[in-house]
């Protein structure tokens, strides 16, 4: 296939198992899904048909990265922030409701088989996107160092999951004044000096992407970032979801849905 992944894309009706509040703004949706849609690469996403809710209609589907999946149990999970009318409508989903999803979509994270130590830096809802990558790295016996950044402790979601996969999980928050770029820079420099870091993965913050671009260049470490963009088709034909990238000194527009959502940190531009 040209550009993105060559996986089959399906439209399926799933059934809601549960849809529970994690904190004030986030919900955790667990769906029962046919196993054919569950051959998923970490970082890939689904395009979700939000239900009609009160007087609102979400005409376009909403792209959302996968939080967890289990092919044996036929389950797929999303962790989402209630932000606009689409996610507001999603928050109304109840046990045994049907929910239509399209996927898996896009190009996910790549874990090179030579990687021994990787660093994951996630902010806010980016924690959800990076959770399947942490799972896969754990399965492949790759050492994981994870930095979770959030506004406050209650938004440090999936901390238990990360702690079950790695003994090096660090949390930084705005409330504790520990999440500044300077502090993060100090922390990452320490890791790199103590132990060779083979690759860095991130999602969820423009400031962190900017910092990691500098660090990756300085230490010549490959890095990958999962990006978000408003989408229409989610498959690649409509060209609505482009973002600018710098490649060999030139600005190039790429589709987040198809060439991404995971891109090289060296090419991605902070937004």
């Amino acid at each position, binding site marked *: 296939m040209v550009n993105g992944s060559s996986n089959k894309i399906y439209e399926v009706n799933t059934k809601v198992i549960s849809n529970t509040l994690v904190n004030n703004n986030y919900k955790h949706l667990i769906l029962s899904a046919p196993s054919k849609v569950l051959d998923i690469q970490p970082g890939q996403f689904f395009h979700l048909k939000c239900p009609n809710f009160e007087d609102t209609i979400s*005409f376009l589907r909403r792209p959302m990265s996968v939080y967890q999946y289990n092919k044996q149990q036929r389950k797929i999970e999303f962790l989402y922030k209630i932000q606009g009318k689409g996610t507001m409508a999603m928050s109304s989903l109840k046990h045994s409701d049907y929910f239509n999803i399209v996927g898996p979509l896009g190009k996910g994270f790549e874990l090179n088989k030579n990687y021994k130590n990787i660093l994951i830096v996630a902010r806010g809802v980016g924690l959800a996107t990076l959770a399947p990558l942490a799972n896969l790295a754990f399965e492949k016996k790759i050492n994981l160092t994870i930095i979770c950044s959030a506004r406050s402790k209650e938004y440090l979601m999936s901390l238990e999951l990360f702690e079950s996969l790695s003994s090096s999980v660090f949390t930084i928050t705005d409330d504790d004044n520990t999440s500044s770029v300077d502090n993060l820079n100090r922390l990452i420099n320490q890791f790199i000096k103590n132990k060779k870091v083979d690759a860095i993965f991130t999602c969820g913050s423009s400031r962190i992407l900017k910092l990691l671009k500098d660090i990756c260049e300085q230490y010549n470490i490959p890095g990958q970032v999962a990006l978000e963009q408003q989408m229409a088709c989610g498959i690649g034909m409509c060209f609505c979801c482009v973002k600018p990238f710098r490649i060999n000194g030139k600005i190039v527009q790429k589709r987040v849905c198809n060439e991404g959502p995971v891109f090289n940190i060296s090419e991605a531009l902070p937004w």
Partner: protein
Amino acid sequence: MVDLTTNIGDLVLKNPIMPASGTFSDELANVFNIGKLGAHVAKTITEEIRSGNPTPRVSESGNNMLNSIGIPSKGIENFKKKYYHYTQSIKFHLLQAFQLLQQIASPIFAKKLAFQVLMQLK
């Protein structure tokens, strides 16, 4: 099977089903068997590379959406490289479309010639 063979000028299509320009891409091969179509109409291709409009390019409102993509194109050279190997018939139709549109090119593309390509599927 009903014979749906259709002629458009000297083109012979196995059926008359084809997408409108810009509503289709080869990524849809991951969704369904695109070999069932009679033809594939490519998104507009310009002679030179065009980056298209800045984002946001789409907006939804109630039961509808508006989009303004700005006719991005990787240019004709990229298109030729990417598709020439698919079918030998493209070369002929591409040249034919090129010549036709050279004569009727719209004012927008007076300098940057645009053309649509109908790709016959065998």
